[in-house]
């Protein structure tokens, strides 16, 4: 089956969704996705970030689809033509959804552990409006303690329901779910029950925002100050293949290995995630690479650093020697009088 997205064509198998086809093509035409997760059954369709315009339904029925379609749950048809980033209507819809996602969001990125690897940050960077039109009071939820390993910040949640699907599909006893409804809908155990299943930590990895974060990593470091390495260990519960996030010689956090769409390659167990923070526990394979625009690359060490030669006058780059001298502290006389009083150099020392 042939499908064309933003003018680029690709052959796909029947049953492929528009989003999957777009990811096969890659690049800027790939719609953002906040709730779809290829490894979770039944995910997608909810956040509406990935809306696209189907300008031609199929070869057999070429009529355009009147409404924008959620690309993650809409199957490709042979001859289908789709407009993603190229469509002003789609751009407008993505802006709208971004605005809706942000109106009640606390915007507490400065103290959020997800900052730097947050899909909502990325989405607002691409499609957000710098000025909020929302002047009402933001919705807030009572904090709930869901156990020793996972921190729930309901105010940040966008209700993608991935964490519920993780619990349904990876564990045999889901204890949390979506409670209440409308804009009061929330993720909760309802009874402040500890979520302690062996695979519960994957809720953190699938969470696109800072609603579910790793308590053992809480406020330890900004993610971009960590050096991520691929590592593995022999684990009888899971694949044992992880990314360890290091600060100096210390492993501060362990996560699944996330791909370019921030989906884990394989789910990992809580043992690997929370209980093995010693370097000796792991065989370090080497640096984990991230997409080029990730903030984690601010701290990039995956490429060889070469000395950069800039072809210009030395004076422009380094300044004049006499200016260096002026701002040097070496020659300041600490006993110099200020306003006629002698300064005690020891006191100021």
């Amino acid at each position, binding site marked *: 089956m042939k499908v064309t997205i933003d003018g680029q064509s690709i052959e796909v198998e029947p049953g492929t969704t528009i989003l999957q086809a777009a990811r096969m093509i890659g690049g800027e035409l790939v719609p953002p996705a906040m709730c779809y997760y290829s490894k979770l059954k039944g995910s997608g369709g909810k956040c509406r970030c990935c809306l696209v315009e189907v300008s031609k339904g199929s070869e057999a029925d070429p009529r355009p689809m009147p409404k924008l379609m959620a690309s993650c749950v809409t199957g490709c048809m042979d001859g289908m033509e789709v407009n993603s980033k190229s469509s002003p209507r789609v751009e407008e819809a993505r802006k709208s959804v971004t605005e809706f996602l942000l109106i009640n969001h606390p915007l507490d990125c400065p103290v959020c552990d997800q900052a730097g690897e947050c899909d909502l940050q990325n989405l607002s960077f691409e499609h957000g409006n710098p000025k909020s039109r929302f002047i009402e009071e933001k919705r807030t939820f009572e904090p709930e303690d869901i156990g020793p390993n996972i921190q729930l910040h309901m105010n940040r949640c966008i209700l993608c329901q991935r964490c519920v699907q993780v619990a349904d599909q990876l564990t045999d006893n889901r*204890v949390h779910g979506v*409670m209440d*409804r409308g804009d009061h809908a*929330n993720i909760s155990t*309802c009874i402040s029950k500890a979520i302690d299943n062996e695979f519960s930590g994957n809720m953190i990895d699938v969470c696109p925002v800072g609603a579910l974060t790793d308590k053992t990593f809480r406020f330890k470091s900004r993610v971009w100050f960590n050096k991520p390495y691929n590592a593995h260990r022999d684990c009888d519960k899971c694949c044992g293949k992880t990314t360890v996030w290091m600060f100096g010689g210390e492993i501060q956090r362990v996560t699944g290995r996330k791909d370019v769409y921030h989906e884990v390659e394989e789910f990992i167990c809580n043992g690997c995630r929370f209980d093995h923070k010693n370097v000796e526990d792991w065989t370090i394979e080497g640096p984990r690479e991230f997409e080029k625009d990730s903030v984690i690359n601010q701290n990039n060490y995956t490429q060889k650093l070469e000395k950069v030669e800039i072809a210009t006058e030395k004076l422009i780059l380094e300044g004049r020697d006499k200016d260096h001298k002026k701002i040097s502290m070496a020659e300041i006389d600490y006993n110099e009088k200020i306003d006629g009083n002698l300064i005690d150099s020891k006191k100021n020392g």
Partner: protein
Amino acid sequence: MEKTQIKQNINITEALMVRIDELCSHYPDDKRKSALLPVLHEVQDAHDNWLSIELQDKVAEILRIKPVEVYEVVTFYTMFNQRPIGKYMFEFCHTSPCCLNGTENLMDYTCTKLGVKVGEPTADGMFEVRGVECLGACGYAPMMQLGDFYQEHLTEAKIDQLIADCRDNKIILHDK
């Protein structure tokens, strides 16, 4: 979600269990969960019109589903109460067609008469006034739901009478 620490006396009587079994028989054997909403209504009616967490857990056990599946449903639907409510709950429809016929003034009247605010039970736990969304009785406004039944074409005099009837134990809440 609303939470309460109040303990509830759980008593799944034989008669209630017979009714639950009958409701479950309406669905294929492997689809017992489908009976959840009707079973919750029956269980709630038999327990002073509210569902504590313990009672919800009991329902989960009876239907052989996870407790969280019951919590999710109870918190979604407006008719399931998660805390004790006034015995006689006056649920006024306050959607626009009813308001065109004076519902808001009548709610004020009822609250003043009972000395309560909307959503707060009276001190003796006898009454509570709530505004609810469209009950499907727009042509018979103002109206309210009281137990299983509708009270329509309400006036101040009718409210007075209803309150008196409740106090005299003349009002049947559930049709069993």
